[in-house]
């Protein structure tokens, strides 16, 4: 027989949560709820701070802070200060898109190489290596980009701008190796292991029976791989969304290789700037000016919003896919 228990108000409240039926359920919920809620509160508090700190600049410039290209810091004269974030927003999105475009084939190839083409004996050490790549601090990538990648990209980019300047991508002759292209390539290298890990995980979960089905139709190995990759498309999208999030949030490595100039240009052979690298390079000085800190917070808000939008889009895509494949739609 069930023991009669008198339920207090807390218990009654907890029982309204779906799936909570017993004392054990209540305890479980009580144990985990605080941690989960705390995290949620921290995120909301963060967002709150960013909104609050952005208010001064937005009430002064309105939406121009997001759409203007002028960055004028004047000491001791707040009226003369003017901050437009557009070049940085543009640079953030541009470099991250380049990174994702490069990381897409790289991460898929890396995942397939590890899962399909690497002998069992080597697989362990190779995947350890990619995990290591993911765990490497970004400053290490930054220094590598600064000392190695940028100088080596320079002749390539020069050649491209000499021979293909009619393509807007290469219209500007680079003055150094510190360019948008360099930042994009570096970000691609940094985010590939993350995307590859997600893709690999999904690839390794494909049932043997599906693999056998593909082979037994007379597909070659490459054709089988193509069929199987089609099956994990949502995970590829999720992996690339993760790569994008990592790329757009990256700070120090980018600021070391992008050249930090406030320009908007289609040319990847030109230098540029991103919101994160702008914040990193300017925040130390922000105390000397009246509105700069607020402008930088507004930039943070933009990055936050873009990251959110990309993730929502990825989740939406996966849901659509699920509806299509599992047929739960309508």
């Amino acid at each position, binding site marked *: 027989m069930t023991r009669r228990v008198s339920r207090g108000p807390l218990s009654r409240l907890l029982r309204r949560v779906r799936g909570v039926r017993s004392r054990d359920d209540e305890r479980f919920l009580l144990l985990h709820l605080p941690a989960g809620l705390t995290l949620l509160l921290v995120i909301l508090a963060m967002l709150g701070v960013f909104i609050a700190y952005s208010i001064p600049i937005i009430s002064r410039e309105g939406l121009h802070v997001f759409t203007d290209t002028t960055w004028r810091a004047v000491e001791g004269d707040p009226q003369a200060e003017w901050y437009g974030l557009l070049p940085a927003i543009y640079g953030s999105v541009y470099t991250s898109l380049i990174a994702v475009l490069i990381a897409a084939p790289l991460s898929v190839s890396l995942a397939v190489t590890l899962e399909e083409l690497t002998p069992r004996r080597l697989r362990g050490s190779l995947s350890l290596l990619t995990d290591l790549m993911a765990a490497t601090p970004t400053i290490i990538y930054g220094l590598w980009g600064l000392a190695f990648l940028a100088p080596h990209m320079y002749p390539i980019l020069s050649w491209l701008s000499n021979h293909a300047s009619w393509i807007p991508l290469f219209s500007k002759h680079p003055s150094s190796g510190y360019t948008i292209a360099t930042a994009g390539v570096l970000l691609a290298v940094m985010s590939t292991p993350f995307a590859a890990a997600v893709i690999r995980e999904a690839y390794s979960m494909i049932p043997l029976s599906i693999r056998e*089905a593909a082979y037994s139709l*007379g597909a070659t190995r490459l054709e089988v791989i193509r069929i199987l990759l089609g099956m994990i498309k949502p995970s590829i999208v999720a992996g690339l969304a993760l790569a994008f999030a990592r790329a757009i949030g990256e700070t120090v490595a980018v600021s070391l290789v992008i050249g930090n100039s406030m320009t908007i240009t289609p040319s990847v052979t030109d230098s540029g700037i991103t919101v994160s690298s702008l914040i990193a390079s300017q925040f130390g000085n922000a105390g000397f000016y009246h509105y700069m800190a607020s402008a930088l917070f507004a930039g943070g808000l933009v990055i936050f919003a873009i990251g959110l939008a990309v993730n929502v889009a990825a989740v939406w895509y996966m849901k659509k896919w699920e509806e299509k494949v599992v047929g739960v739609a309508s």
Partner: protein
Amino acid sequence: MTGYALDVRDLRVTLAGKRILDGVSFRCPEGTVTAVMGPSGTGKSTMLRAINRLLDLNPEARVEGDILIRGRSVWDMEPYEVRRRATMVFQDPNPFPHMSIYDNVAVGPRLHGLARSKQELDEIVRWALERAMLWDEVKDRLGDPPSKLSGGQRQRLSLARALAVKPEILLLDEPTANVDPVNAVKIEEAIRSLVREEGITVVFVTHMPSQAVRVSDYLVFLYGGRVVEQGPSREVALNPSNPLTEKFFRGEL
């Protein structure tokens, strides 16, 4: 021509060092159904995978002996050619979940360039679905995912997918084991008419003696990795010469 679509000679297979098949030989005349029977774990599925070289995918498998498809050794062909000429339908239905019904059937013809136009592809897909006795049930929803089909329909979709590459030999691994009786009958009918009207040769693994008699022309009885009895199905089923076969048919093995 030898007149045999499939000629298995002294097939020996070890998996992870364990001997599974120990000298299996049998021949399937062109346009016939051969039922392969035997207790669970004797290596029937393994044998089918050896025939179309799916075992190549298993690094722990060792295969010896010869397998001839229309007189040509599978070892002289590319594995994907072997698998295209001898396609397999598996114990559990395994359509590609991310492809529509149509694309599941079209994937093979597309791989092998069997259709020169959309119209030709449509015709192959329709032919395969009709042959698998599924067309009437899905013709108005070819764009649906296989998840919207019943288990038996999914198995017939797997059959249609295998047929669409126009194989010479069809390897069926207990295709009705996980399917309700109505679907089982449909699959049996499909197999009979395929052999009769399209001249395909079928190797058919089954657990059910009654099914073997209904569907097959020849019967091969495997036990302990060897063929212990083979011959025309009716004869073997009604009048087994080996005590093991008899025991199996009485349901005691």
